[in-house]
């Protein structure tokens, strides 16, 4: 196999702080090359330099042996590089077809061939067997569906190299499987793939080669046979990790019931939702994307209205006002971090202060010292990098942003914390830290509801698992042993309520 | 069909309807309903209000007259638009303060062609029409120059706070003022000229800057009273009231108060109510007699007399003449 891409001595800094230091990176023809590294290691930045989004401060790029200048996204396209970016790059007000064809429209004498393009896109959707309408407007799609559009967009380019930055972060297991199939197919056709993911099992399974970045430095390139999970993790985080085996000891808590949801219904979104949460318990919510878990959680939290049913917290009806619920001890870490989790322009400490003004401020006047103290405590406690609470959260990497969002709640006297997709796009080291935080909370009596599409994570952390499907609770696992297969079967409707009983 | 401009359309319309108009001419003020519109350059300043008052007072003596005031919003475009509207609504006469003489010419033609007499108030339109009740602007400028020149004994330093650049009235006052100075008082130096955009507060700022820059100012000439009042406040704050003469133009009652208090030196008073009444009289006359531009070769002009008002003759402007 020949070198398709060679990046040499790539350097980059943002706001005078170096993010990439002399990075070398090569991709061979027809290989799946995984790019690994902790949050903020510089993976996305490297990709953006390769695709002309950011200018590089130094270094060279060779494509098929020749030095090239890539100054814009279209330069990259011309070379044959297709990308799925970590943050979705779709145009919400355009249709699926328009989005997929964006930048490569077909036109005769300047007039667009809209129908032709739509047919092409439909063909493409058929070819890869996805369930999306070509003329749907993107803003009406779910995040998962948007991710699919993103994938199709990259596939439509007939590229020689396709870069996938966290393509499965918001995909369900089933859709991920189809993506893996597509990757195999592409590989057969001689297309190279750069694959970035924090889901390690995917990486081990797919990749032919693996490059590890740490703090903007390339620390290793591993051939397929050298890829040993423990080694990779050690390389990534620079130390050993006591990875707990995916524990699956389910148990029903004997503590008092904290939250009781009865027959909750929201038209067209979910119905018949009933469950109980005990003090100090961690309950996982599984389900395919679009199962309606996020919606249920938002209703409980008071962010959305519901049509009928009852939510009781400590035997009292839950308020429909968020601020009252927060006072009562609720907390929410939302799924869509960038749009719902934090205010990007504000510093870490000010973001953290947002939920804590009842203790930080008196009579509406902010106690600056206290605010600082809260910020610094959290930065230290959560190991947020870089360790300065004055930095705007928008400038942090994904994982550190998530920690900052968590930090908003941890200085409070929390009784119930709802975490939606706590580790989407977060590196293994940070994941572990976040699990520890969750477990710690539970030990101190906080009930935690964890909505997650990462089955391993669900099994690792939860004491009970509730599975939702199409807006209803379809199964609950509360005792014995379960495996990922159980949940998968329940999610896709094969296994029904209390399924673990008829397990051998 | 061929492309025709408005004036062409108006001309042909006026030919064909000439007789009809002739027949309709001479409405009776005691039996028929009469609608008269007043379209000032901009509504809300004291002049426009005084004109409207004067018109209304006169027209109120007739029982069947409706009198409507429109707002030209200080824009030619709006005035042209409203002129169209007034023609469409077939007013019996239009009293117009033309924001721009040339810009409103076509509209005035159109109205006259439709048999609607147009009386311009204060600002002329650049075409023959029923009547112009001219205000004082060039003459006011001249009068101020004379007064200042005389009282300074032909020697001194003057600053000008001017209107919004390009405003017809301001340009005329300026022209009159400068012409007299350069002719009769060559030793009076115009130190500086800046726009106060008709506004009191801007004139205040401009005057402040003049006072900072020029240690010696003998007189300040403002294109209207509002600015003179602003300038007076600045001069007073600088404690230089003794040294500086302040002149305005219009003669609004507030200015007369300023003169009374010794804050301002003088103004060129126009009796705006009576000017308005004259406009209304002309309109009534035109409607009754059926005279429009067709019967005229040039616009008849009624001139208002400029009255120089200073503390000395302030009492000549009696309470009922104030506006």
């Amino acid at each position, binding site marked *: 196999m020949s070198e398709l891409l060679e990046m040499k001595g790539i350097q980059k*800094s943002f*706001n*005078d702080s170096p993010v990439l230091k002399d990075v070398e990176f090569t991709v061979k023809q027809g290989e799946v090359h995984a790019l690994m590294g902790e949050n903020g290691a510089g993976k996305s930045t490297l990709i953006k330099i390769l695709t002309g989004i*950011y*200018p590089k*401060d*130094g270094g060279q790029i060779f494509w098929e042996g020749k030095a090239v*200048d890539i*100054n*814009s996204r279209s330069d990259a396209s011309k070379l044959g590089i297709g990308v799925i970016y970590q943050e979705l790059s779709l145009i919400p007000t355009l249709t699926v077809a328009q989005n997929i064809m964006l930048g490569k429209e077909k036109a005769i004498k300047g007039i667009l061939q809209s129908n032709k393009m739509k047919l092409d896109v439909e063909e493409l959707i058929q070819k890869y067997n996805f369930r999306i309408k070509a003329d749907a407007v993107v803003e009406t799609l779910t995040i998962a569906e948007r991710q699919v559009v993103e994938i199709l967009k990259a596939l439509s380019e007939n590229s020689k190299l396709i870069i996938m930055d966290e393509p499965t972060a918001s995909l369900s297991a089933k859709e991920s499987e189809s993506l893996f199939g597509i990757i195999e197919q592409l590989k057969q056709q001689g297309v190279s793939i750069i694959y970035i993911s924090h889901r390690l099992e995917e990486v081990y399974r797919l990749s032919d080669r693996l490059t590890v970045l740490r703090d903007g430095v390339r620390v290793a390139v591993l051939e397929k046979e050298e890829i040993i999970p423990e080694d990779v993790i050690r390389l990534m985080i620079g130390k050993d990790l006591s990875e707990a085996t995916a524990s699956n000891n389910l148990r029903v808590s004997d503590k008092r019931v904290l939250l009781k949801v009865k027959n909750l219904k929201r038209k067209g979104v979910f119905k018949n939702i009933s469950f109980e949460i005990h003090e100090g318990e961690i309950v996982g919510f599984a389900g395919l994307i679009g199962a309606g878990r996020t919606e249920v959680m938002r209703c409980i*939290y008071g*962010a959305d209205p519901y049509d009928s049913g009852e939510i009781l917290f400590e035997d009292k009806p839950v308020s429909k006002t*968020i*601020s009252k619920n*927060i006072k009562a001890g609720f907390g929410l870490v939302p799924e869509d971090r960038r*749009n*719902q*989790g*934090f*205010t*990007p*322009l*504000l510093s870490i400490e*000010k973001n953290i*202060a*947002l*939920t804590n*003004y009842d203790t930080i401020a008196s009579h*509406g*006047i*902010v106690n*600056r010292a206290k605010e600082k103290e809260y910020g610094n405590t959290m930065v230290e406690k959560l190991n947020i990098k870089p360790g300065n609470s004055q930095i705007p959260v928008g400038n942090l990497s994904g994982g550190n942003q998530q920690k900052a969002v968590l930090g908003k709640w941890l200085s409070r006297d929390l009784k119930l914390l709802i975490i939606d997709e706590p580790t989407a796009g977060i590196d293994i080291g940070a994941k572990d830290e976040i699990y520890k935080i969750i477990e710690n909370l539970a030990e101190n009596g906080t009930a935690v509801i964890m909505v997650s599409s990462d089955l391993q994570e669900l099994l690792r952390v939860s004491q009970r698992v509730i599975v939702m499907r199409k807006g209803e609770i379809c199964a609950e696992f509360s005792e014995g042993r379960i495996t990922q297969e159980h949940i998968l079967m329940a999610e896709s409707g094969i296994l029904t309520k209390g399924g673990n009983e008829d397990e051998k | 069909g061929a492309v025709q401009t408005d004036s062409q359309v108006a001309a042909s319309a006026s030919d064909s309807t000439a007789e009809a108009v002739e027949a309709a001419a001479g409405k009776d003020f005691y039996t028929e309903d009469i609608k008269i519109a007043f379209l000032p350059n901009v509504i*809300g*300043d004291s002049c*426009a*209000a005084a004109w*409207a008052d004067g018109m209304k007072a006169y027209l109120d003596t007739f029982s069947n007259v409706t009198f409507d*005031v429109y707002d030209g919003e200080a824009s030619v475009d709006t005035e042209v638009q409203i002129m169209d509207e007034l023609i469409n609504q077939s007013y019996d006469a239009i009293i117009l303060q033309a924001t721009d003489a040339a810009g409103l010419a076509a509209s005035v033609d159109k109205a006259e062609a439709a048999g609607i007499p147009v009386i311009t108030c204060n600002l002329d339109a650049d075409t023959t029409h029923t009547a112009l009740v001219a205000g004082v602007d060039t003459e006011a400028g001249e009068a101020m120059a004379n007064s200042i020149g005389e009282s300074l004994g032909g020697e001194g330093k003057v600053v000008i706070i*001017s209107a919004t*650049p390009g405003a017809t009235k301001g340009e005329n006052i300026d022209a009159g003022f400068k012409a007299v100075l350069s002719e009769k008082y060559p030793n009076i130096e115009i130190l*500086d000229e*800046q*726009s106060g*955009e008709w506004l*009191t*507060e801007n004139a*205040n700022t*401009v005057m*402040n*800057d*003049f006072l*900072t*820059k020029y240690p010696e100012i003998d007189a300040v000439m403002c294109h209207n009273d*509002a600015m003179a009042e*602003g300038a007076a406040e600045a001069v007073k704050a600088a404690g230089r009231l003794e040294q500086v003469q302040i002149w305005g133009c219009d003669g*609004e*009652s*507030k200015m007369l*108060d300023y003169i009374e*208090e010794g804050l301002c030196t003088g103004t060129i008073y126009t009796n705006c109510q009576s000017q308005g009444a004259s406009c209304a009289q002309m309109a009534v006359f035109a409607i009754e007699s059926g005279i429009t531009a067709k019967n005229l070769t040039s616009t008849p002009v009624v001139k208002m007399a400029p009255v120089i008002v200073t503390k000395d003759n302030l009492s000549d402007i009696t309470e009922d003449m104030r506006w």
Partner: protein
Amino acid sequence: MKNNNLNIKTIFNKSQKLWILVVVMIILTVLQPGVFLTFANMKSILLSISIYGIMVCGTIFPILLGGIDLSVGAVAAAAGAFTVVQIVNSGYTNQGVIIGVCGGLLLGIIVGLVHGVIVTRFNVPPFLITLATQNIVYGVAQLLTGNNVIACMEPKLFAFLGGERVLGVPFSVWIMIFMALISYVLLNKTVFGRSIYAVGGNAEACFLSGIKSKTIIVLAYVASGFTAAMAGIVLASMNRQAIAKAAQGYDNFVLTALVVGGASLMGGEGTITGAIWGAFLVGVISNGLRLLGVASDYHGIIKCIVIIAAVALDANIRYKKSGLQKKSLFFKKNKAQA
């Protein structure tokens, strides 16, 4: 003090455009020695921006939320008109002044309240709604004044607001300074201020953090209406008159000052000190041009260049630092670095 030093440094680092002000002032000092840089002249600049300056102190709130208030001119006119009409009706008594001023301020508050409620309740773009209400409020001003100029030379108490001097500085400047202080404290020391920045940066995240963003938004527009009304009353007092078309076009100046002072119209960014600096810069330019005897016809050219230079300088320095810069300022760089 060391801390103080650091503060100035951070202000200048955050907003490089402040250097423009310094440069402009140095140029003017050199061109107009002994005239420009004098206490009297600085006072007169401050006086000339005081009306806008008062408005800026409140209008910054909706701007920080990513909103806008285009009705400030209209509100000023209506509030001034209300106050003067009250005073005239009361027979020029001090009591009339107090009632008039309170009523005028209340009018501003009500308009702000209406804006806030419409914006939050119906989720409509504030640009449009305030543009439309501008008509209505000017209409109210016309109704109040009957389209006439209402002079109000009495009583002394009223004239004091806009005309008197305290310690040699016009009272309107003191009002501006006072309002700026209040604004500063509100923005920097209170939960309300923090919430303003937060909601401006990401309203959804704030909603989920339990911040009553709707209340915050409404209060921001109320603040804007309040200061606009106050500015209008001071203006009326300064001019000793009420006039329906007062303060027309002030909206533009206020926005210019805010943006030149570093506020982003997308919300979340901006400081009151910056805004006052911005107002001051524009005031300095006008003053300087007048002192230099440049005809008012051509002031716009210089103003345009300085404003664009100030904002562009800031934007580009920020852009360069962010590491996103690909093109140079004036022409496209074809070759990347060798």
